[in-house]
């Protein structure tokens, strides 16, 4: 069953058009990756789904319901949670308070503070520390955990690997199958193509705001990918 459907979505990043009539689908329970070079429109696409970027044309549907003009906080009610690029942890709140804020809408579901600590044991020892004092890896784990606290149907992950050591990135990506197994659909944006292909069931490649390639992760060839990624 299709959970998320984008039809002909055009969006702007500041004054620049970043998406040109993008259409894509994500089925319930799937993990889908959006890859592409810097400036391809990946984060704008996630922002359009989460409501932080205004959509200029086309429509976005979640489980058949149009959400194109809904505000971000209303989309959280419907089950969309975004882990934003740069994590955006609340600096003055403790790690645990950050998690509790994630559960602000009280959506029913299995995720709880204890379950997030189980998924990310490194957060247990820093639970009382203020957000600003956490390391990059701890902040990213906290950002993912915070989004899970909303018990989302659709989890949007924006550049999880950005600015982190490879070992930390690997640890974070190891949790994605666990999150997916809990029944959460995942749409992730990633510049690290290797990570994206290993984590996703299907992949869309964006090139200058347009879908240049789509397919099952294991079926995409290297040459095909290079062409779609760089356009040459």
């Amino acid at each position, binding site marked *: 069953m299709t959970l998320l459907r984008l039809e002909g979505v055009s969006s702007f990043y500041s004054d620049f058009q970043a998406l040109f009539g993008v259409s894509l689908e994500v089925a319930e329970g799937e993990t889908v990756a959006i890859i592409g070079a810097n400036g391809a429109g990946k984060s704008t696409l996630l922002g359009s789904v989460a409501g932080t970027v205004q959509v200029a044309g086309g429509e976005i549907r979640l489980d058949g319901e149009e959400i194109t003009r809904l505000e971000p906080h209303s989309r959280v009610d419907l089950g969309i949670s975004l882990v934003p690029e740069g994590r955006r942890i609340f600096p003055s709140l403790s790690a645990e308070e950050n998690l509790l804020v994630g559960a602000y809408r009280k959506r029913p579901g299995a995720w709880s503070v204890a379950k997030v600590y189980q998924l990310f044991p490194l957060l247990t020892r820093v639970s009382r520390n203020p957000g600003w*004092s956490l390391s990059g890896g701890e902040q990213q784990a906290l950002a993912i955990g915070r989004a899970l606290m909303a018990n989302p149907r659709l989890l949007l992950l924006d550049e999880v690997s950005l600015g982190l050591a490879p070992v930390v990135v690997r640890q974070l990506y190891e949790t994605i199958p666990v999150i997916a197994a809990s029944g959460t659909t995942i749409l992730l944006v990633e510049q690290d193509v290797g990570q994206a292909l290993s984590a996703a069931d299907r992949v869309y490649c964006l090139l200058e705001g347009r879908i240049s390639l789509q397919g099952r992760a294991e079926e995409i060839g290297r040459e095909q990918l290079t062409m779609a990624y760089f356009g040459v």
Partner: protein
Amino acid sequence: MVWVNALVQGILLGGLYALFATGLSLVFGVMRLVNLAHGDLGLLAAFLVVAVADASGLSPWIVLVVPAMFVIGYVLQYVTLNRTLESGELAPLLVTFGLAIVLQNVLLETFSADSRGINAGAIETESIRVNDQVAIGWFPLATLVVSVVLLVGLQLVIGRSRLGRALRATADDLRAAELMGIDHRRTYAYAMGIALATVAIAGVFFGMRTTFAPSDGPARLIFAFEAVIIGGLGSLWGTLVGGIVLGVAQTVGTQIAFSLEVSPGWGGDLAGHLVFLAVLATRPTGLFARTQAT
């Protein structure tokens, strides 16, 4: 001993200033809005109590002015001020300045320019006499106690409740808060509601402490503003300390003026403003500003 008395009276007066300043500090801390009508809204609460007392006598029902001001604050923020916040920093200043003028004139038209007072009964004049020159008035003491209780309560709400976390998260990062499902317009409205509830308490205590007129709001705003700046923007306990520092400066200044045989009132206000300027010059973020490494 007169200086000890000045110090004691200043601490007690600081309680009233802290009451006035708490809401101003909260609103600035959460949404970076300086409400120039804050003092006039406190006066509005005092006049509402006067109107109720004139109609049916002073009764415990006057506490209803607090929830009434909460509702006024919520609606004011949700309907009007939220829109101004989206238009830059100048718009809310202009709108609250305009609101202050409207309030002053409505109060003037309704209650005339005559000074009014709220009769709190015998507690207004009764005191604990420590010795011949030092006395602690029950009413100023009650004001200080109420301000401390209010700050403890607010600290608990902000530190431990769901609403408090939402307020702090919104203050930290409005866009990230939206991604958590927090509607910042409602959160701001709650903050303004709480601020006006606290300034209602301040206004009523002020009205019981002294006489007041429709034109007194701006002076209350200035003292509240000075207490917030001295204590540190966004710090609730700093606000109490700021209020006490300002109160002590004023009472000590009054005592100095009295010793020099110049107008005591003039000396008190001047000393308060000088301490405020000294703090602003030497520690612009205030004595207890919220600091955070990034």
